[in-house]
């Protein structure tokens, strides 16, 4: 049963700490998206990869956020340093050639 796997599911950290979220896309998918979801803003696009190349990260605060795909089986989203306003649920989604997106269960981040 193919699915997108995200870790950690929950993370509580203190302001200023580094946070790394990981995503394993579905095998064979060539697009990976990172979204952030809050009640106020809904689902915001942070970064988008196609064939491991970053295509759009305009929605991501560059001073503290970074997104990478070291290989086809792993995408990472890093926040350094984290701030309370980063508290949200972070979703990774993968797809094939612009079709349906398959979402992971999300990483709920709380920054105190």
């Amino acid at each position, binding site marked *: 049963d193919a699915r*997108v796997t995200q870790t950690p599911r929950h993370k509580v950290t203190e302001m200023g700490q580094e946070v790394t979220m990981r995503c394993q896309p579905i095998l064979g998918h060539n697009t990976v*998206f990172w*979204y952030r979801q809050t009640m106020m*803003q*809904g*689902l915001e*696009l942070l970064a*988008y990869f*196609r064939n491991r190349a970053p*295509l*759009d990260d*305009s929605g991501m605060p560059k001073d503290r956020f970074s997104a990478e795909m070291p290989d086809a089986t792993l995408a990472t989203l890093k926040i350094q340093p984290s701030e309370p306003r980063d508290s949200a649920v972070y*979703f990774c*989604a993968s797809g094939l050639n*612009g*079709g*349906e*997106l*398959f*979402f*992971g*269960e*999300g990483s709920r981040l709380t920054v105190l």
Partner: protein
Amino acid sequence: TQLLEQSPQFLSIQEGENLTVYCNSSSVFSSLQWYRQEPGEGPVLLVTVVTGGEVKKLKRLTFQFGDARKDSSLHITAAQPGDTGLYLCAGKIQVHNNNDMRFGAGTRLTVKP
């Protein structure tokens, strides 16, 4: 401001009622998708519409894509408690020669038994 505006933001109805939720934009989309999200889970695709004026039916759910491909609606007939969830529309839009998938903020539907 959201690229895709969804309305209403919240909707609470009784089982058996009909409802329509809307997704509007000033931008033209090459395709538009509707997803449903349940608490603690990621969104799951319901349907993709591609052609202006297209209507798709999925059991009690009817999806319509506007003629100009800027808006869409989702109509649910005889709603059931199992329809409760967050309904999200997502549009594929070209940004810097790449196709991004942008989401609306969603309509949170509660169907009471």
